[in-house]
């Protein structure tokens, strides 16, 4: 047996497990998106009908574009808040830095559904936000404005996905050699110039990666819009989910999920490319 043949045999033996558990399921739903459903029966003929009815129907395509827009907003707000947080933690020294980092990352481990629950109770009619605004005299009576609309989805997603943004930015900042900052200051650049010309460009790949993670996670989220979005906070994730439940059109749901999959994959590959460029 030649060396090459042995290597291929071992490869096949190893790769069969991820192929069965990961590639095959993804392939099966991609294939399903090319079938069609008639009265709850799946007809196995190849057709692009699901895709044409997705792009042809503004209810679906518009929801998709609206979701992408919402997720871009989530991404933007999360970076605007997350960058100062990561930068502040990076400016700290010793064990305080480690403790703050731990506090920033810990929410990643906290149950998603629990965070959703607590945020929903905070934004609600009797929630903390309303109580605080009433107490400060800003509002005269509790407002419905914070829950069951698109804005509530935005706020909740930002809070939930913020730690995913802070961590990569911090890791990128931490990689910047102190000598570069020292050199910049020694050469007479002020701290603003040093930030603008050294820190910001060198932390950009990590920031882009963090932003894209938030975008991808928000894109597929169907529980947040359902729990805090009410009737106006409709996203493509909710539409897909309903196709596998009440609406019961699996092929059409699979087609929409395929479009989501491709959008997410582009995001992931861009993030990977951005990280791979981050070699100081």
């Amino acid at each position: 047996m030649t060396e090459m043949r042995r290597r291929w045999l071992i490869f096949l033996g190893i790769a069969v497990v991820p192929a069965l558990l990961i590639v095959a399921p993804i392939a099966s739903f991609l294939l399903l998106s090319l079938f069609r459903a008639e009265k709850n029966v799946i007809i196995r003929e190849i057709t692009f009908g699901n895709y044409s009815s997705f792009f042809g129907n503004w209810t679906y395509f518009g929801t998709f574009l609206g979701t992408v827009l919402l997720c871009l907003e989530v991404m933007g707000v999360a970076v605007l808040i997350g960058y100062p947080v990561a930068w502040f933690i990076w400016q700290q020294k010793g064990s305080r830095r480690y403790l703050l980092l731990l506090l920033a990352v810990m929410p990643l481990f906290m149950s998603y559904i629990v965070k959703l629950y607590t945020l929903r109770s905070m934004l609600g009619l009797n929630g903390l936000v309303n109580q605080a605004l009433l107490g400060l005299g800003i509002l005269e009576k509790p407002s419905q404005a914070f829950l069951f609309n698109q804005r509530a989805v935005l706020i909740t997603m930002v809070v939930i996905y913020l730690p995913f943004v802070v961590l990569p930015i911090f890791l990128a900042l931490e990689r910047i050699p102190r000598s570069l900052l020292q050199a910049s200051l020694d050469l007479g650049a002020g701290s603003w110039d040093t930030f603008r010309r050294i820190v910001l460009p060198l932390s950009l790949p990590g920031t882009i990666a963090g932003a894209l993670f938030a975008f991808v996670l928000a894109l597929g989220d169907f529980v947040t819009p359902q729990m805090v979005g009410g009737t106006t906070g409709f996203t493509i994730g909710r539409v897909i989910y309903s196709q596998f439940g009440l609406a019961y059109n699996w092929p059409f749901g699979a087609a929409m999920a395929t479009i989501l999959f491709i959008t997410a994959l582009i995001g992931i590959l861009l993030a990977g490319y951005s990280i791979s460029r981050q070699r100081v």
Partner: protein
Amino acid sequence: MRSAGDRLPLWIAGLVTGLVFILLYLPVFISLLFSIVEIRQGKILWETLSFRHYVTLWSNPSVMGAFSNTAIVALISVAVATVLALVLALYTEWEGAIGRRMLELVIYLPFLLPPIVTGLALLVASAELGLNRGLATIVLGHAVFVLAVAYRLVLTRLQALPHSLIEASFDLGAGRFQTLRYVLLPHLASAVMTGAVLALTLSFDETLISTFVAGDQMTLPLRLWAMMRVGFSPEINALVTLVLLVSIILAIIVAWRMKPRGQVEEG
């Protein structure tokens, strides 16, 4: 020397950080508070302080059933993922490996993709195969989901091991299997454990993939979700507090294990 003007950005960033931490952690304390005391018209009634809602949970069969399901799923899926991660990491670090980058992308996919895609893929695949949805499909879903973190941690440790260690083992006459058993595995053990605890934390909280593959089975997050749809109650707050407590304890264990220490001694 820093002037007062230079410190302004630090103060602003510090303020933002402080507000973010309040936003992230305040809900935890509120749930805890609501689970042990009654609050009426914004006033805390301390005389109502009691832990009875925790006791009620204990005798709630649907909550306890969900809890035992969660524990079973977590233990089996983490065991499966850990063994798989170890084998895959040893393979991708082997000099004769084929398609290393492709294999890594596949391993990371279920973790990186929106959970709705991973969940749907498993749902469709199990329907095509005629598998009944239940604990077994949840275990599969969690195993592919947590595989990425277990793999990443083992791989990082494997790459940090000095190559001389393995060469020395071969020079001293150990075969491939003996090198694996007596040299590699003992060095990998702590990374494998850290990966397993991290995976356990993720499996314990996993909601979105489970939604698709659970069938009529309930895990703790799914049960919580179902309870949430009905409304707010002190009992939910008690359960929320307990779930958070478990997550935080697991997270602290992971953080403690991953704290940078001295590296593997060279030579």
